[in-house]
């Protein structure tokens, strides 16, 4: 709830049947309750994502059950599974082809940091090397409830996005890039190995 409207006044008016809202609240309320995920499963976490969309852990109660096959109609990319170096250019291209505003949930240990397959030569150590990620879900695979918890976390993040001012949401700011360079296949590794602008890991020096 935005802070420009005084809470007491709002609840007082609501008791008399007058509902007060702001343009930003309405805009965010509409977007957060109908997020269309891209139909895009990589590995085991994709099966847990399907189980979340099935009848027991119903993602339809959060408005997220419309899985769109084409990125043109999707606004959330759930990277569910191991991101290999052969698949990374495809994922970045799909991310580029999604219309703004778009969000990314990095589901499972493999999508965050390469997970158990970190020592593999063909495994990308985390998708946040090439595209910005909004919510990370640890777990291998995370339970369907953990995915629902992350979905609610994403809804909270959308709810808190501003419409105007300098802290406004990225997709509204013309300066923010809506597209990221697609890595090329090199002789030994992807070129470039990471998107330096996006991926600045802290230096942890261990003895």
């Amino acid at each position, binding site marked *: 709830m935005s802070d420009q409207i005084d809470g007491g006044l709002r609840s007082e008016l609501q008791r008399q049947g007058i509902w007060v809202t702001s343009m930003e609240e309405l805009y965010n309320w509409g977007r957060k309750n109908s997020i269309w995920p*891209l*139909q*895009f*499963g*990589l*590995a*085991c976490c*994709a*099966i*847990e994502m*399907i*189980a979340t969309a*099935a*009848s*027991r852990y119903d993602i339809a109660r959060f408005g997220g059950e419309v899985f769109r*096959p084409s*990125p043109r109609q999707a606004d959330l990319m759930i990277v569910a*599974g*191991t991101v*290999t170096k*052969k*698949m990374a250019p*495809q994922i970045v291209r*799909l991310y580029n082809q999604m219309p703004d505003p778009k969000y990314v949930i990095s589901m499972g240990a*493999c999508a965050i940091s390469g997970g*158990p*397959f970190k*020592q*593999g*030569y*063909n*495994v990308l150590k985390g998708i946040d090397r090439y595209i910005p990620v909004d919510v990370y879900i640890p777990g*291998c*695979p995370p*339970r369907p409830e953990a995915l629902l918890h992350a979905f609610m976390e994403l809804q909270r993040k959308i709810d808190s996005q501003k419409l105007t001012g300098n802290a406004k949401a990225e997709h509204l700011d013309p300066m923010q890039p809506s597209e990221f360079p697609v890595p090329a296949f090199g002789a030994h590794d992807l070129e470039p190995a990471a998107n330096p602008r996006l991926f600045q890991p802290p230096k942890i020096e261990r003895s």
Partner: protein
Amino acid sequence: MNTTEMLQPPPAMTSRLDGELMEVSMGPQHPSTHGVFRMNVALDGEMVVKLKPVFGYLHRNHEKIGENTSYLGSMPYTDRLDYFCSMTNNWAYALSVEKLAGIEVPERAEYLRVILAELTRLQNHASLLGFLLSDMGAWGTPLMYAFREREKILDLFESLSGSRMMCDYMRFGGCRVDAGPDWMERAKKIVDLFPKFLDEFEKLILSNEIVIMRTQEVGKLSAELAINAGMTGPMLRACGVNYDIRKVDGYGFYPRFKFRVPLGEHGDCYDRLMMRALEMHESVGILKQAMEQIPAGPVMNPKVKIRAFRPPVGEAYGRIEGPKGELGFYLISDGGTNPYRYRVRPPSFINLTVLEDLCLGHTVADVMVILGSVDIVLGEVDR
């Protein structure tokens, strides 16, 4: 064409259009390729003229990591091979390491392994029928029925091994946790309820005219080509070849149970669909028998060390009848704690060898049904 000629990969069909064909990539992100599997399809109108599968989008270097980790350390990685059937993957790996090191398994552990493998087969075949129907166009409904049953079986796995899909339950020489009486009670109840679900599921899908029209005479496979191309599992038995490793090798006390092996005649998609449906009935039969005969006793061979487990120098190839076909592990040990060579024989990867032979001449929509009937899981295809 004589037999050897027919067994070769098919020459590209010549198209009447002398111009270029429509090159379409049914790419890594496709609603019904069961994961990141890509096919470069050349189309003449709607007819498939050339189909080259492209693998490797989920190549997670399972074998290289297997060579850098201890024998026990590779066990949780086998859950992630075919992430629908973690129990049968564990069993195949445990079986080949026991063959490599010559370890016996107590009786109760062998019975538990049979029960869990058959439960895995049930939920794998139910999920496959659900996915195959959604490939055909019935988008959500059969999948919801199948996943409703799958959730019940996953609850059993979770209460026994601790995790829904990644059970990591079997150790060399037995199983990690013993199944308590209340777990057996719940398992019996679920297995007794399963035939009711099977009848309901078959009434829902198998007699449906659209399913019959879409799958009969689609993707026919001859028995000689199936044997020569290394098909195993329901895909091979759909062509009428009677080869089920549970009967051939007789591993894991399977000779003690009475069960039949369903065989098809035409080797088309409908027969493959029926194989899975009939095998579910057989698995329920095996489960009932195994749950009555299971003896008490230890579940773990006490002589086997967990840490610093060093099998003697040598090699071994152990295989089981996984839900998708013959899942084998080929291990070469040089006496150290890490295997020298750790190789997985992936049934769904080899079952894809004849994908082009099945799809040539069919329309694009049939390619999806044929791919769905092969039942591939990319974790196992790309390893």
